[in-house]
């Protein structure tokens, strides 16, 4: 009796441990590469960049510890305020357009089945194309003197702005290009959400005399709200990280009016070799992204329906 008891105690204590080892021996070859990747290319950089942000370092000598100086310098910097303002301007213009326009496109596209895959392919052209190639096209479209946009405006008697050369218009111009590029991607995400809505809902609503606008407001929007929330979050995150479009179209100009946080990190680190300062900016960017995302997670309860 006592021998049996001892044995069962032993199994309780030892067998799971050996089982863990056996299970890990099986799993290790499968997960080794991503674990190394996670440690070397994500874990270490996150810790290191926080460390760098507490130093002054131009890559030549060893980093010099300066405590929170970089953050204090940021807080008192007019350039930081301007960059933050630029980023918020981008976000405020970009997010509503990137969330709403693709939804309308998806609703329109969802209704006719005939050429849907052809239309979808056309809307996907800008999505699969590099921002570099797209910026080549748009920098010419926006050319104030010879660009087709201002020539078209002139034809209808409007004196077009100088777009990328005008501090007031450069950011809106960048946003227009970005929305044009992302529309097809967000539209396909919405289409997947829309296809989960039973068509009977719309038939009933139509019988009850709901107009197209009412169906959109009271039926479509609540039913795709989880998808909308997803699109909203990825749009906010991408706004904080804008780099390619501003790098290609304006390099942050004119008069720093399009220097966004994402571009500023690049400039400070790789143009001026201020590795510590750049890391501090990157962390501010990271924390702002987290704060905005958490805020949206809070707010979602008010408008997102999960069935």
């Amino acid at each position, binding site marked *: 009796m006592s021998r049996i008891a001892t044995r069962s105690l032993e199994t309780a204590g030892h067998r799971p441990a050996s089982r*863990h080892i056996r*299970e*890990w021996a*099986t799993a290790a*070859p*499968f*997960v080794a*590469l*991503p674990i190394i*990747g*996670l440690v*070397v*290319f*994500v874990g270490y*950089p996150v810790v290191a960049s926080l460390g*760098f942000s507490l130093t002054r370092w131009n*890559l030549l000598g060893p980093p010099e510890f300066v405590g929170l100086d970089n953050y204090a310098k940021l807080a008192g910097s007019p350039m930081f305020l301007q960059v933050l303002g630029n980023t918020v301007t981008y976000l405020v213009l970009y997010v509503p357009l990137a969330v709403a326009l693709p939804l*309308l496109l998806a609703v*329109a596209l969802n209704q*006719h089945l005939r050429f849907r*895959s052809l239309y*979808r392919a056309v*809307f*996907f*052209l800008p999505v699969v*194309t*590099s*921002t*570099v*190639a797209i910026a*080549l*096209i*748009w920098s*010419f479209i926006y050319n104030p003197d*010879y660009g087709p946009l201002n*020539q078209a405006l002139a034809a209808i008697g409007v004196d077009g702005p100088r777009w990328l050369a005008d501090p007031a218009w450069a950011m809106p111009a960048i946003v227009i290009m970005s929305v*044009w590029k992302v*529309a*097809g991607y967000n539209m*396909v*995400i919405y289409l*997947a959400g829309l296809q989960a809505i039973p068509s009977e809902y719309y038939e009933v609503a139509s019988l009850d005399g709901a107009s197209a606008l009412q169906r959109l407001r009271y039926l479509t929007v609540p039913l795709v709200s989880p998808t909308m929330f997803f699109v909203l979050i990825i749009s906010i*995150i991408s706004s*904080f*990280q804008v780099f*390619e479009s501003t*790098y*290609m179209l304006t390099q942050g100009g004119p008069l720093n009016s399009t220097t966004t*946080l994402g571009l500023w*990190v*690049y400039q400070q*680190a*790789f143009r001026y070799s201020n*590795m510590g300062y750049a*890391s501090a*900016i*990157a962390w501010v*960017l*990271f924390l702002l992204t987290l704060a905005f*995302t958490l805020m949206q997670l809070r707010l979602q309860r008010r408008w997102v329906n999960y069935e």
Partner: protein
Amino acid sequence: MNAAVIAGCVIMAVPFAWMLFGSLKPTSELYSVPPTFIPTVWRPENYAALLERVPFAQYVFNSFEIAILVVVGQLISCSLAAFAFARLRFKGRDVLFVLLLAAIMVPAQVLVIPQFVLFRQLGWLNTHLPLIVPGFFGGAFGIFLLRQYFMTIPQELDDAARLDGASALRIYWHICLPLSKPALAALAVFIFMGNWNDLLGPVIYLTDYAKMTLTVGLAYLQGQYVTDWSVVLAGGVVSVVPILLIFIIAQRHFVEGMVISGLRR
């Protein structure tokens, strides 16, 4: 509704047509008032000029080399990991999976500076290694996408194979991978596109012209030959054609990939 969709399509497609036609015009015609859409003078020599002025063929080769190697690396490393997360049981599995996904939340701007420092210490600056090697160590997007797909493969297939004495690696190789071709194709298309179009990595790591990819090459071409815009546009067309071909061939996989990874989030 119909009119809105067609108008949208025109807005999406016309800039591309404009680039194509622009690349076949003399530069002077690009600046004509009123503008022309279809060239009045055809100048296909713009494409030959590309090869004379910059190592353009080399850019194309470099872009292909990097994108293809990263696709191979991601397919191997992500499918292995996805199999473990979908099919194996081991302590800490779910924590590890959440940690891998959480990595998506960290902005590239936070990671890029220490990564640059790391690759500098390894002496990898101005080589393609910083752009290729990380691809062989998995990625949250690929692992998530493939795991979601592996979960849909009936467990009974594994169980039968296991009864026959098959090891986990054999089940991965002979059952999971052959049944997951659509998801693997979707991932390959996504990864190829992301790397072919990437700008930040090549801008930071590559300094020699001969080592540059199409994206940086084009960015510099734009800076260098502002006077010869139609040649720059020809470069743009060359950079877009491969990705469009891949997209047209693999469109179905592309959309499937978005649905697999998006719907079950």
